[in-house]
């Protein structure tokens, strides 16, 4: 197995061990904890009064536009990282290219700002 794949195998093993630990803790817990079912225990909490309706209804997500912006900027971050690692080798050419890229992104943010997307609607 190559060194590259092996290093990720270590991470997978680590994650699996973490899951095993969580499962073990839950297992120990289930042996120790009491279980005395009463219907009142399984009512959702709503400040002490009986809940009115369910929570799985339509909800206004005010910041869904932020989520769209986030996708744009997160993809940009993926572009910036390889450039940041190799900047010394890329030199002035890479610098100018990335400055143009960042300027366009900043313009996009400014456009969203002027369009009042960043305002609490």
């Amino acid at each position, binding site marked *: 197995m190559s060194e590259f794949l092996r290093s*990720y195998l270590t991470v997978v093993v680590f994650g699996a061990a973490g899951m095993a630990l969580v499962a073990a803790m839950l297992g120990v*817990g289930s042996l120790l904890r009491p279980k005395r079912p009463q219907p009142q225990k399984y009512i959702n*909490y709503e400040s002490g009064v009986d809940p009115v309706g369910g929570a799985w209804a339509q909800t206004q997500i005010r910041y869904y536009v932020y989520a769209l912006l986030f996708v744009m900027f997160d993809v940009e*971050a993926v572009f910036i990282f390889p450039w940041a690692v190799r900047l*010394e080798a890329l030199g002035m050419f890479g610098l100018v290219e990335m400055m143009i890229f960042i300027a366009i992104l900043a313009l996009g943010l400014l456009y969203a700002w002027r369009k009042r997307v*960043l305002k609490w609607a």
Partner: protein
Amino acid sequence: MTALPLLAIELAWWQATAIKVGAVLTVIPIGSLILVYVFLFKMMSHMQSRLGPMEAGPHGSLQVLAEAGKFLQKEDIFPARADRAVFAMAPVVVIVSTFILYAVIPAGPDLIVEDLDVGIFFALAVSSVSVIGILMAGWSSGSKYSLLGALRATGQLIAYELPLVLAVVGVVIQAGTLSLQGIVAAQAEGEIFGFGLIGNPFIFTQFVGFVIFLVAAQAELTQTPFDMPIAESELVAGYMTEYSGFRFLFFFIAEFGTAFALAGIASTLFLGGWYVPFLPDGLLANLAGPAVLGVKIMFVAFLIFWMRFTFPRFREDQLQALAWKFLIPLSLANIAVTAVLKVVM
């Protein structure tokens, strides 16, 4: 063959991995318990002119164990309206994403689970997986408080993910590598105005990045002043409202475990990590490294919790405005200035 020069013996890959995994999985709960006791129980109490837990052990130091025992005995309650499978899985997703974060944090020349080439990028990617767990928890609980808390948490975590990621780019430009061991080495070899004996922690050149990283980490951890997702006075405990017993404890451990990990990443990126000046790589560095890193982690964690106990809560729109109108433009400017200085100078 993975060498483990710590003990001057050659171990097979699986042996070395087993030792590392065991050691790190022990460090995580201990680290988060230390943070809970020192900062949440004691520092918070003394800053607010009260004693905090004092009964269990000397100065209440065994209180964390008492709490663990208490959670162990609590009934595991699934609300009748809950989506059982998702409800059960959500805390596991959150806590495992915290565990995996520790895989790339170095505590010494050999004390790291795996020094991935894309180390810091991996850490940032894994840390954001917890958003999915939080959204799962809020949606599956079938409670209004939980749903509101989870939606707030999601909006907040994605908004502050960007400053967190962009603040790191400045360090990456300076170090020229994504590996956390490489970043430690770059700081160890650095020079302050030609004086290179003690290295050059990136906090001197990336101070803006350090501040952005800390503010964003504060928001990622949903600590006050960014604690709207779990605001006790409005939402009880947000997405954790319906959880009890061990599953609630998992969210709690994950919160403090992530605080410990992000403090460790901040120490590694900006404060020089485990590196001790004048100490060559070897047994001594492996012994001194964790202690040095531990002190730096406690310092960064102190800053985080100091903010938490001092500031009042933001409003949701103020929170989004701070991220999008101030931190992101600032971190873009930081990247531009760092890049220009790197190429020109």
